[in-house]
């Protein structure tokens, strides 16, 4: 699976849940690996890229979540 594809899927998932449910890293890993039939490590790698580039950020509200940075 192409990493860029995985990154797109992750971003779309996070975008879709804005205002509904804050997602944890493990939620994203579980959902995307099941959906695409890839390992969780692959999802983690793609997520790491997204965070390193600042496309997504970690936040903390009584637990750590992955979110789209505020504009």
């Amino acid at each position, binding site marked *: 699976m192409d990493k860029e594809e995985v990154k797109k899927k992750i971003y779309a998932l996070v975008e879709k849940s804005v205002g509904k449910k804050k997602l*944890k*890293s*493990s939620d994203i*890993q579980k959902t995307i690996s099941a959906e695409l039939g890839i390992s969780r490590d692959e999802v*983690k790698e793609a*997520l*790491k890229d997204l*965070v*390193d580039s*600042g496309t997504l*950020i*970690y*936040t*903390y*509200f*009584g*637990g*750590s979540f992955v979110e789209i940075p505020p504009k």
Partner: protein
Amino acid sequence: MPKKYDTPLLDQLEKGSYPSFVTEIKKAAAKNEQANDLLGALEQCYKDKKTHWKHGGIVGVRGYGGGVIGRYSDIPDQFPGVAHFHTVRINQPSGFFYNSKALRELMGLWDQYGSGLTNFHGSTGDLVLLGTKTEHLEPLFAEVSSRGWDLGGSGSAMRTPSCCVGPGRCEWSNIDTLDITYNITQEFQDEMHRPAFPYKFKFKTSGCAVDCIASIARADCSIIGTWKGDIRIDQDAVKWYAKNGMDINAEIINRCPTRCMSYDGKEIKIANEDCSRCMHCIAKMTKALRPGKEKGATILIGSKAPFVVGALLSWVIVPFMKMEPPYTELKELTRKIWEWWDEHGKNRERTGELIERKGMRNFLEFIGVNPQPAMIKEPRRDPFYFWQPDELK
């Protein structure tokens, strides 16, 4: 910086013969605007009998999911110096060894980018820098990381592992606490900086059961040095203690928690099979008693402070594990524990709480550890061992 605020309430905390954090903040306030406003803001909290701090939001620097605790004042117009007052956790060296050059360098940077206030060390073990602005985080991090420092953990992640001083200064250490801590810190960088757990997870390593860092009460995984084999006794030294006024029966024999020691006025005898290796006798009679020769660690799981449920102490899961680099057995066990926790843990549920909820039996089955008598934590608990249907054939 001229004095800006009268602080009659805080001033009371300078009375008495103990060190005072107020005195320290005042010293920092003499040359730092943030520390100066902190005095005013804190006095206001005491006056109003409520906190004026908010937290949350920012958690780290680019690429990191932890290491910074976002703090904001809810009355920023009154105290602009502490409008942001973020905490930065710096991963401490194992055993807290610094040289003065490293400290000077770090403190120079902190005077430049922050309040100048520190906490050596936080209860997590980190070197804690108290109070900086959002726009200073990235430049501060660039400076400290270029000098070989890294952020510690925060949030739902592996927290910065910490340990007692161990073989660095202490003859009782059964394991290299410093190396173990450094090694797991390196191994689990991803788990520390990219939070993906249900909640926090802490490792604390003590070289012996004296447990100077209280790992048994403060770590999800407590690693405590121990030994196999007989306690080594130097009977001449026993006589020396007796001659120098030690009441061996009162101070040693009767205080052995398992009652496995005896003393006939000349020699000490120990029924080693009943010894729980608590360290009491060795710590009191250092010249006469030494641990057995085969060294390792007991691995315990699950302690925590009160939160979702009350405080828990860690629970033995591996009575004796060899502790030699690269610590493969410990790492494999840890990964298994995390897998089970990831599968079943609810948001904000610690490992120990999950074990309380799902049961020790379920946990042991998953991590592939057989129940043993050494795991029994206290009497009058329901036994956690049951036969499985397929074991009855």
